[in-house]
C-alpha cells in the first residue's frame, strides 16, 4: 500500500517553545551545539493507486487539517520504503523517484 508522509514544521519566523525546551534539555544532557525545532510527521497509508489526483487530494487535506498555514509549513512526500523498514535507512536514503511537494 503506498505511503505518503506529511511533515509539518513551525514556520521559521514563529517561535517554537517546544523545540526550545528540547534544545535546553539536550544541552543539560551534555549534547552541545544542537538547536532543535519540533514538528509533526504524519504517515498516511493510501488505498489503491497513488495517482497525481490522489496526491493533490492529500495535499489539500494537509492544507485543510494537518497544518495551520498561519503558523506552520508542510511538505508532502511519497515514501517508497516498505512499511516497517528500518527508519534510519528510510531517512538516510530517500528514494530517488520520490516526488516532493513544498508549500
Amino acid at each position, binding site marked *: 500500500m503506498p505511503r505518503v508522509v506529511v511533515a509539518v514544521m513551525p514556520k521559521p519566523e514563529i*517561535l517554537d*517553545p517546544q523545540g526550545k525546551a528540547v534544545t535546553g534539555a539536550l544541552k543539560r544532557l551534555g549534547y552541545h551545539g544542537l538547536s532543535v525545532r519540533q514538528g509533526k510527521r504524519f504517515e498516511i497509508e493510501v488505498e489503491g493507486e497513488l495517482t497525481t489526483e490522489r496526491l493533490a487530494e492529500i495535499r489539500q487535506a494537509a492544507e485543510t*487539517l*494537518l497544518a*495551520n498555514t*498561519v503558523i506552520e509549513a508542510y511538505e508532502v512526500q511519497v515514501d517508497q520504503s516498505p512499511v516497517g523498514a528500518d527508519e534510519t535507512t528510510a531517512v538516510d536514503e530517500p528514494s530517488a523517484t520520490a516526488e516532493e511537494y513544498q508549500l
Partner: protein
Amino acid sequence: MSARIGVVTFPGSLDDHDAARAVRLIGAEPVELWHASDSLQGVDAIILPGGFSYGDYLRCGAIARFSPVMTEVISAADKGMPVLGICNGFQVLCESHLLPGAMIRNEQRHFVCVDQRLRVETNDTVWTCDFTRGEEITIVLKNGEGNYQADPETLKRLEDNNQVVFRYVNGNPNGSNHDIAGITNERGNVVGLMPHPEHCVEPLTSPSVDGRRFFSSLLEFLAGRS
C-alpha cells in the same frame, strides 16, 4: 422574552457549565448546543467555551472546527450572529478563520493561571458595547497555549481597523503579539479572547465581576436590534 444564548459543548469542553451559569445570572436563557448536532435551535447568540476540545489533539481547536455544529456556527456568524469564543473557543474561532491569526504555546513554556489585568481597546463590538474604551478590567486567565501570533500585515490590519479588543496590561503573560488578549472580526459580531469572563461574574469566586459586562453588552445589543 429573555434572550436565548447557545453554549456549545465539544468533547473535552470544561467551561460550558460556567458559561451557561453566567448567562443565567445575567437574566438570559442558556441553550445547550451539542458538537455533533447541526441545529443551533434558533438561539440569539453563541458562546464557544474554554476547555480542551477533542483533547487538543493535532492543534487546539483544529478538530472542533470541523464538527457539525461549527459548520452552522460559521455560516450564522457570517450572517451576523453574535459569537463569543473564550480560550479554547478563541482557538476554535481562529482555526475556523472566523478570526485571523493562531495561538501557539506560551513563550514562557508555563501554564499560566492568574487574575489578569486587561485594557478594553474598543467597545465597538457586540460583546463589549457596555464597556468604556480605554477602561481597565480584571478577568482571570488560564492557558498553556495562549500566545497569539499573526503575520505583520494581519497585525497592522487589526490595529488599523480597531479590531484589537483587549490588550494585556502590567506584563504580557504568554508572549502574544502586540500584547493581544482578544480580537474581533471586521463586523464586530465575533469576539475571541483568552481570558475567561464567564468565571468573573460572582464576588464569591472571582477577583471582579467585570465578566458580567460581556453578557450585558450582548443583551444591550440584542435589545437595540429588536
